[in-house]
């Protein structure tokens, strides 16, 4: 079955495009020290706020640091946050969703009520609130984004479970006397994987957007660590003097998130069960 997906995946141009970009970014993040022309934290006050030149391809920021290098290192932050935050959300969301969808009844009602309540708070504000109580740093940001992301996923997983639960092979497994846990993990889970995968991919894009927004507001990754968001803070402050500080980090975010969105949408088409009939 996975072979079919792989074949279709290769034919789907959207997904391929997205995947290629993401791979490039991942590689960039890993070999950052090798390709960055400068040390991203190295200040050079004499050359602050310089426009793009042969020496500094994208210019320098308010402390004379090379923008290109900072953006390259920023890739690490973004990808890390994306994966960890979504990873947390998936683990919690899938677990709760499975339990909710499989057992139904009062457990289901309770979990869904909790989900409803969590969804009442404007997500971003919730994150802001919590960060305000804690210290803003990359780890807290990742955890908080993850913790605000699970409700949506729970609903999704639960919905999928509800439709799969009634299918025969689940009944068969029950009749065979398999333990509930085993049924959930081994039989139910693989069948609900597809939408989870799609949601996860799209979620990474969302997490990156959120993290950059937080960093922009000063509540995310703190300088001197370079995050695309916190570079844009300087961009705002020096908007009249240094347009490059506003343009390039934002472009980086745009391209990255776009790649994830394309990949996610592409995956959605590839994994669509309706197309299995081909």
């Amino acid at each position: 079955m996975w072979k079919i997906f792989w074949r279709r995946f290769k034919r789907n141009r959207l997904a391929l495009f997205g995947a290629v970009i993401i791979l490039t970014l991942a590689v960039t993040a890993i070999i950052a020290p090798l390709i960055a022309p400068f040390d991203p934290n190295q200040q050079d006050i004499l050359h602050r706020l310089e426009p793009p030149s042969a020496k500094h391809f994208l210019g320098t920021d308010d402390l004379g640091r090379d923008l290109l290098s900072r953006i390259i290192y920023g890739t690490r932050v973004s990808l890390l946050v994306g994966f960890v935050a979504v990873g947390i959300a998936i683990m919690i969301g899938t677990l709760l969703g499975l339990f909710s969808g499989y057992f139904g009844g009062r457990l289901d009602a309770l979990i869904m009520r909790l989900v409803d309540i969590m969804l009442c708070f404007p997500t971003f504000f919730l994150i802001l609130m919590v960060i305000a109580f804690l210290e803003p740093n990359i780890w807290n940001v990742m955890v908080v984004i993850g913790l605000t992301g699970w409700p949506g996923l729970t609903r999704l997983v639960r919905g999928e479970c509800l439709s799969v639960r009634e299918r025969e092979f689940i009944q068969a497994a029950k009749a065979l006397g398999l333990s509930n846990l085993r049924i959930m993990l081994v039989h139910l889970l693989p069948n609900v994987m597809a939408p989870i995968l799609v949601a996860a991919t799209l979620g990474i894009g969302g997490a990156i957007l959120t993290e950059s927004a937080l960093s922009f507001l000063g509540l995310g990754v703190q300088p001197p660590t370079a995050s695309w968001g916190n570079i844009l803070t300087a961009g705002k402050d020096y908007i009249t003097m240094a347009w490059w500080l506003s343009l390039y980090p934002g472009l980086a975010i745009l391209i990255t998130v776009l790649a994830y969105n394309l990949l996610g949408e592409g995956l959605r088409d590839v994994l669509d069960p309706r197309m299995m009939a081909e």
Partner: protein
Amino acid sequence: MLEYIVRRLLFMIPLLLGITLITFMVIQLSPGGPADMLTGLSPKVGAEAKARLRHLYGLDKPIHIQYWLWLKRVVRFDFGESFKDGRRVITKILERLPATLLLNILSLLLIFFIALPIGIVSAVRQDSFFDKGMTLFVFLGFSVPTFWLALLLMLLFGVILGWLPISGMHSVNFLYFSLWGKLWDLIQHLILPMFISAFGGLAYLSRYSRASMLEVLRQDYIRTSRAKGLPEKKVIYRHALRNALIPIVTLLGLSLPGLIGGGFIFETIFAWPGMGRLGYQAIMSRDYPVIMGVGIIAAFLTLLGNLIADITYAFVDPRISYRQK
């Protein structure tokens, strides 16, 4: 129909309780404890003074009593006083709420009047140039960080071209303008924030209306209306649209929380004097009572948006309201 509304309202109550409970728990977790939250005293105050305060505010009572007391205050919208300037939190919020609501409602209207036609036309002319172009646009819309877009637009329209103001709701000499002048000034200040606020919603709603319209166009009753000899235009605008709008209008009500949430960012960027900016400033200065107040009000508005969405849905879909019969 009335029955339906009442049921929805009753349904809201446990949610409200849950919201207050969660907020209460968050207060308990804040560094320094609830005493600091309520009184704003620095931890350097002596132990005896703290003990007196605890007793004064009933903080030595068991936790569920504390919750009950706090709940009673919240129901009356009494969120205490701000740490920054000692004014009542609710007053500060009410001062800012109109600005936020103005912006959000206008954004919603903008979204509706632009995204809806785009979505509908995309669906009717599926796979055309227009459709594919719009799809591309939507993808970009989903991927772009709105605050960055705000910066770029500020750069373009505010700094480079100098056409529009980039901060605040009024110009400095606002009071000296005539009525028309005031209106024009307001509009000028509204344009950029409104566009940014609407941007994310635009992408989403146009995608959603396209999907909804496509779904409707596949239905059998559309085929029936053609079989009757109805010209295609009428098929779309009378039969299809009416059905496609049902989920879309409910979505509008549900978009409200998204707009409020996004408000924290762009209100700050544009120095728009709304609730979002208040919340952000409160967070930066750790003004806990204000943070709590804004949070609860925001959650409450979200619930309200959901309720409006549900009621609208019952209104436009005869299958719902008549189920009671």
